[in-house]
């Protein structure tokens, strides 16, 4: 397969596999589009505009799902072995991208494609293999029902170690709306992308490298890689390296930012039991890192059941304080089970916490489910993974479940656009509140890291206003570029002047004369492309917001001050956000902004491949 003439770091094409008729084609990706969207989440947004039929059912056969790589993948730049999985989410009904890191990124790209897209559906449980011999499907009945880890292990035993595998677990097979896609123990976690593969009866995608790709200026890339690696050992990443993200928990508790009991409180009296500061000494057995990463943020703990689990703040917050559970063994076990089942821990914990509150209020009949009851939480997770009992309801996510239960439960369903909130209390982090409210993916801390500004001391985090809007836009823009290059956000602290620095990296890989200003425009374009996709799929102004709880109930912080986020304040920030982004007052794009998205570019199909049955 000959690559189109493209910039360094790219192949200039995407592979589109139609699982329905076992055929594949390659799509040329115009250089103008690659430069406008870079790769990863940006390229994925453009691909969804082009390939997803308007109004498509995310779990229907016509829905495409894209694994998107980036120009930096395969370079020695630290943390660059990442990819984005992009599709219309079954949980939100809107655009979703989930990022992950592993050798899958490198092997997937070195099949000779900047993206691999699957659409259609298999007739039977299958695995898609892609290497230099082209794509082909193999039956995977023997893998169906296995955890992603087990499926990956068996496939690599069968196919050989050169193959890298992204797989779903039982939750994806059962179409749990927040099922993950997993590889090497890491998850493209948010938004239920695993359910899309489950609906297609596609257990896994396996890739094997078959070609190479060179950067435009190898020497410059090598020098940049050395420099970035050296900086990655500095104080900006010390937190991740030494204790991991779980270091957030006790600190967030001290500043009333630790969501507790379904956001009824922002401090958890038993937080010290779950704190990395103490748990690490007793439970940590290993430290690990993603492929091509010099930070090493992964901290592996051992639970009382002897099983090891990768510990992250979001897992522990969602399955601990959010559910009122303080037993570290129960939280580690729940986290491990979510990994095995292939469940997004944030949505699993958030939906379970909502159900706990419903049960305590007598809105659902589940006397076994109470805040603080670890056994109840573990049972809920099992039932969700199996879609049995209460799990059939909870597998739909908190928004859909609240619509079924009614009785006012939507007011405290902890989601935005259907995606459950991460572990950042919006009332005490009001730039973050805006970020959560307006983000295209829904309530999300990776596409909008505005908590950074709230925790910087640059503004009063309890009193949202113009400074918070500026901060939220800034973090959203920076995330859009980092998620498209792709670089890990844990590196963000090492860049003092990020857009120009990123532009230099991109230039050395691609050969383009990109500058910081162009990248800032690229960031805005990517943010707006996601918003435009959502608008096409039925987004309305009412979808940008927060549940009533956050706008009607106040919290008290340690100083005695009250944290209140009124509907009026949030609406004012949203209106200012639209204005600052140049949007219409309705939140929709203007015509000139739509023109800038470069949609509807002719995409040339270069080849059609029959797959081997």
């Amino acid at each position, binding site marked *: 397969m000959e690559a189109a003439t493209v910039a360094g770091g790219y192949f200039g094409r995407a592979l589109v596999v139609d699982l329905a008729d076992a055929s594949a084609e390659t799509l040329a990706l115009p250089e103008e589009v690659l430069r406008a969207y870079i790769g990863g989440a940006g390229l994925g947004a453009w691909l969804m505009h082009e390939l997803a039929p308007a109004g498509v059912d995310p779990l229907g056969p016509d829905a495409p799902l894209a694994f998107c790589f980036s120009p930096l993948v395969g370079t020695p730049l630290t943390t660059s072995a990442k990819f984005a999985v992009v599709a219309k989410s079954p949980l939100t009904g809107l655009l979703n991208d989930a990022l992950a890191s592993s050798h899958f990124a490198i092997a997937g790209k070195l099949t000779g494609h900047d993206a691999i897209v699957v659409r259609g559906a298999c007739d039977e449980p299958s695995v898609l293999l892609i290497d230099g011999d082209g794509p082909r499907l193999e039956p995977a009945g023997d893998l169906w029902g296995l955890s992603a880890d087990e499926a990956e292990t068996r496939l690599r035993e069968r196919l050989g170690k050169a193959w890298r595998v992204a797989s779903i677990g039982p939750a994806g097979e059962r179409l749990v709306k927040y099922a993950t896609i997993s590889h090497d123990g890491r998850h493209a976690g948010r938004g239920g992308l695993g359910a899309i593969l489950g609906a297609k009866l596609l257990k896994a995608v396996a890739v094997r490298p078959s070609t190479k790709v060179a950067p435009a200026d190898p020497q410059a890339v090598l020098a940049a890689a050395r420099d970035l690696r050296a900086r990655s050992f500095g104080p900006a*990443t*010390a937190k991740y390296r030494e204790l991991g*993200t779980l270091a957030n928990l006790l600190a967030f508790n001290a500043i009333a930012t630790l969501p507790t009991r379904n956001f009824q409180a922002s401090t958890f009296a038993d937080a010290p039991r779950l704190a*990395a500061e103490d748990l690490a000494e007793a439970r940590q057995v290993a430290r690990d890192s993603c492929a091509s990463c010099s930070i090493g943020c992964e901290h592996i703990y051992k639970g009382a059941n002897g099983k090891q689990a990768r510990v992250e703040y979001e897992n522990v917050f969602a399955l601990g304080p959010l559910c009122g559970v303080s037993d570290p063994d129960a939280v580690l076990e729940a986290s491990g089970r979510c990994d095995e089942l292939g469940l997004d821990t944030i949505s699993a914990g958030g939906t379970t916490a909502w159900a706990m509150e419903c049960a305590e209020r007598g809105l659902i009949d589940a006397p076994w489910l109470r805040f603080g009851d670890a056994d109840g939480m573990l049972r809920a997770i099992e039932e969700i993974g199996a879609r049995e009992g209460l799990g059939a309801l909870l597998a739909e996510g908190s928004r859909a479940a609240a619509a079924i239960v009614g009785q006012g439960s939507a007011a405290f369903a902890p989601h935005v656009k259907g995606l459950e909130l991460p572990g950042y209390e919006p009332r005490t982090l009001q730039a973050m509140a805006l970020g959560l409210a307006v983000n295209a993916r829904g309530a999300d801390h990776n596409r909008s890291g505005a908590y950074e500004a*709230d*925790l910087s001391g640059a503004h009063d985090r309890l009193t949202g206003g113009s400074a918070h809007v500026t901060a939220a836009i800034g973090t959203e823009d920076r995330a859009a570029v980092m998620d498209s290059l792709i670089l890990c956000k*844990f590196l963000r602290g090492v860049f003092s002047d990020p857009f120009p620095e990123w532009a230099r990296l991109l230039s050395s890989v691609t050969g383009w004369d990109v500058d910081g200003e162009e990248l800032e425009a690229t960031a805005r374009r990517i943010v707006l492309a996601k918003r435009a996709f959502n608008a096409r799929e039925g987004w309305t102004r009412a979808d940008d917001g927060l549940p009533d709880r956050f706008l009607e109930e106040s919290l008290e912080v340690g100083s005695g001050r009250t944290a209140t986020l009124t509907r009026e304040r949030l609406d004012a920030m949203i209106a200012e956000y639209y204005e600052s982004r140049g949007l219409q007052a309705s939140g929709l794009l203007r015509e000139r902004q739509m023109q800038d998205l470069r949609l509807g570019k002719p995409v040339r199909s270069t080849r059609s491949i029959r797959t081997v049955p």
Partner: protein
Amino acid sequence: MARAAGIVLAGGRSSRMGTPKAALEWHGSTLLRRVVGVVGRSLDGPVVVVRAPEQELPELPDGVEVVEDAREGRGPLQGLAAGLAAVRERAHAAYASSTDVPLLHPRFIRQVLAALDDDVDVVLPEIGGFRHPLAAVYRTELVDVVERLIAEDRMRPAFLFEACRVRRLDADALLADPALAALDPDLDSVLNLNEPADYEAARARPAPEVTVRVFGALRRISTVGRDPALVAAATVGEAAAATGLSLDGHVVAALNGDQITRDPQAPLVAGDSVSFLSADAGG
């Protein structure tokens, strides 16, 4: 509309001190910086510093406003008028302070503010037989009365108190609050410094005792063995130093679980709790 703004009068002549009080050193900070910080954290409204025409001021934190007296050296009513005029559209009331009260405690300010209700226009501490018009709360709408008094050249605060409803708070009333009684038992909040000896005596006092907590990876470089620990520190910077940390780009401090700051001059008072966190809070 905020409940209360802060007005700090910096424009006095400091004749007995012999040097401008506002710029006097205070634990690596200045008197004015400290008072502005203490007042600011005690209120929900803006803080305004009133200076004499063309008076030079030491560095102030972001957000603090500066206005000028119309005329220099005419006493506190002149400065109060400028301060009240600056905040009247944004706050119902204002706590007015002089710049020479480094032992001012936020709890004192809150107690004075708490005594303001619909029945009074001014809350005036009266301690040991002395009125403290620059440790008092005024309704901002009093600005018209104050300006009329100035126009009539009736420049003593006593004239203002004759013209409005005043609630006097004596020491017993103030110390009825157990928290204030514990944190400022001698009501040093109103101790003002007029002469070099006053300043030297106050400066020689030990820094207030505050609680520090260190989180995450910072705990591994902290020199404080216990969590939480007590240290003597008048500023966040002193607390950081006593903990073996510095407020660089990767460390922030949370004051009493509330505001986050990187400002080493942010003032601390007795009873404060400072949490040092990693500035890289993602994940």
